[in-house]
Each structure stands twice: as structure tokens, then as C-alpha cells.
């Protein structure tokens, strides 16, 4: 992603050298995201098609989804764009955790070769990906599981 694609930011320190989004302080954060995704395949029909979409944190060497959803693809949607929403999720994050959007193969019967995040050429007012992270409380907390 390009830095020009940031619509609004009063949370992260971002300059020319920034490569990662680093959580600035301990607190409760509300995270949501939206993906426009096309598996672009013919191999899911009558086969397994579970894909994970969300936002991960990378902290202390561990990468895990802190807000995520599971999309199940089958013959009806394996060859078209679907809108996949991660609705607002509240999590406690610690200072210095890195957050990033992520997609992962959950349980697939076959390899997806040409899947894409994007939009149909005719669809000019389509957002292919969006993410919103908001600090909602600086109260102390602890969250070992997501």
C-alpha cells in the first residue's frame, strides 16, 4: 500500500521511512476492515474453500489475527468478487505491536493461483481494501486470547 492511501491518521507516527504500523500505546483498539476478493479459480467447486481475512498483530515474535473473519467459497462465488467484511472488533493491544492486514488460506482443497484483491474494470467506485484502527480507551488491560 502507498502512504497516499491513508485517508486520515492521528494514531501512528508515519514519515518517509515508515514501513510498519506500530501501536503507539497500550490500550483498547477498535479494528474493522473490508476486502474485495476474487478467488479466480475453478478448483473450489465441490472442494474445500475456507479463507481467512483480517488484521494481524505481530508481537513478541508471534503473528496472530486480532480481528478476522472466515469466508467459505464454493461453486457459487469461486469465480467472482465478494465483499468480505471484518466488522468492528475491540482488542487490547500493547505498545510496539505491529499491525497489518492479512489473508491466509484456512482450509483449501487446492492451491489458488490467480486470486486477487481488486475490483471489476466496470466498477469505478469500488474500494478494494479498507482498514480502520481507532484507539477507544487508554485504560489498562490484559488480553491473552483473541
Amino acid at each position, binding site marked *: 500500500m502507498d502512504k497516499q492511501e491513508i485517508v486520515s491518521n492521528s494514531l501512528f507516527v508515519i514519515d518517509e521511512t515508515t514501513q510498519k504500523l506500530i501501536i503507539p500505546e497500550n490500550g483498547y483498539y477498535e479494528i474493522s476492515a473490508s476486502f474485495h476478493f476474487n478467488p479466480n479459480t475453478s478448483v473450489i467447486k465441490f472442494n474445500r474453500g475456507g479463507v481467512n481475512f483480517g488484521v494481524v498483530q505481530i508481537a513478541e515474535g508471534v503473528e496472530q489475527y486480532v480481528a478476522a473473519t472466515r469466508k467459505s467459497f464454493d461453486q457459487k462465488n469461486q469465480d467472482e468478487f465478494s465483499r468480505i467484511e471484518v466488522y468492528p*472488533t475491540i482488542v487490547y493491544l500493547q505498545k510496539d505491536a505491529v499491525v497489518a492486514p492479512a489473508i491466509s488460506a484456512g482450509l483449501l482443497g487446492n492451491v489458488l493461483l490467480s486470486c486477487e484483491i481488486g475490483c471489476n474494470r466496470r466498477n469505478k467506485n469500488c474500494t478494494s481494501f479498507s482498514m480502520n484502527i481507532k484507539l*477507544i480507551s487508554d485504560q489498562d488491560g490484559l488480553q491473552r486470547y483473541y
Partner: protein
Amino acid sequence: MGFKDIIKVLIFLVGFTGFAQEKSFYIRSIRSIHLENTPSIMQQLKFEPVDVVYNKITQFLNDKITISSSGTFEVSAFANINPGVMGSSSKDSIHMELYLIKNPQSPTEEILGKTEFRFSFGNFDVAAGLLIPPTEVQLQKNDEISLWVKILPTSNIDINKSPKYDHVTKPTGMQQIAGMRIEKLL
């Protein structure tokens, strides 16, 4: 027309202004949940006190989530469900609904949100996210909010009937099982 013209990526990164704590509630299960193979019967997905992540607007007592003061709220929920069977034909299907319900089994019962998912052949043993999108609702003080699943009678095969199998579960590769969010808007 370039690639950039048709692809828009939006990122909102919002910091904390002032010291107000947002008036919200978020709970998620940290354990998987068993469902009975009983089509048409409502089955509650129960939470426990340890599941509460953030709470400024409800009371959670005796397994019940109740609203602390009346107002306008936004509610949403999800459950990741895996029927845990194989199926034998492409005509097989399993239909389920997820409900957010106010004051269940009382005269003031109301469905606040509902979603349906149809599992198809090939994906009967793959978890799927059932999502209730954010919806604006009016709630009164002491209204109880809960999450329910119903297997529809239009399903033509059974879900996994082993009492040891938990259908509401972590999908492969992610930790999330089921959750609910309530935000006070006004």
C-alpha cells in the same frame, strides 16, 4: 485507464482525542461450543465472564448481558461454524441461521439481527463465518441481549452428532470463535 483508477484502498487510522472511554461492549468466546442436531430449535451460544474484553455499557451477571441505560445502540455479532461432516452428494446442504435477540422467551422478545448461511457439498467440514452486520437499534435499561443459532429444517443432512464435537469453533489458521459487539450511539 490505469490500475490505480479503478482500485481504491482506504486506510483510516484514528487516534485518541481527549480522555473519554468509548461507550461500548465487546465479548468473544475463548472456548468452542457444541451444537445439537435439532433442526428448528433455537440454541444459545453462551458466554462467560472471562470472555468480556471491554465493557462500559452493560452488566454481565449470571450469564446474562443486560443494558445499563436506555438509548440508541449499534449491535453486531459473528460465529464461525463447522458442521463437521462430509456429505455424500452435491445435492446435500445444511442451512443455519444466527440471531441476535433481545429479551429471549419473554413478551418483549425481538430479533435485533439475523443472518443465514448455506453450507454446500465440499464445505461441510470447513468453518464459515456467519456475520450479523452492524445494525442500529433502540434498547431499554435491563434489556437482555443474547446470541443464538438455529439449524433450518430445509437442511437435508445431519451435522456431526458426536457429543464431543464442537461446531462453533476456531477456523484453521485463526483464533476467533464467536463474538458480539454493542456500541452506545446516543
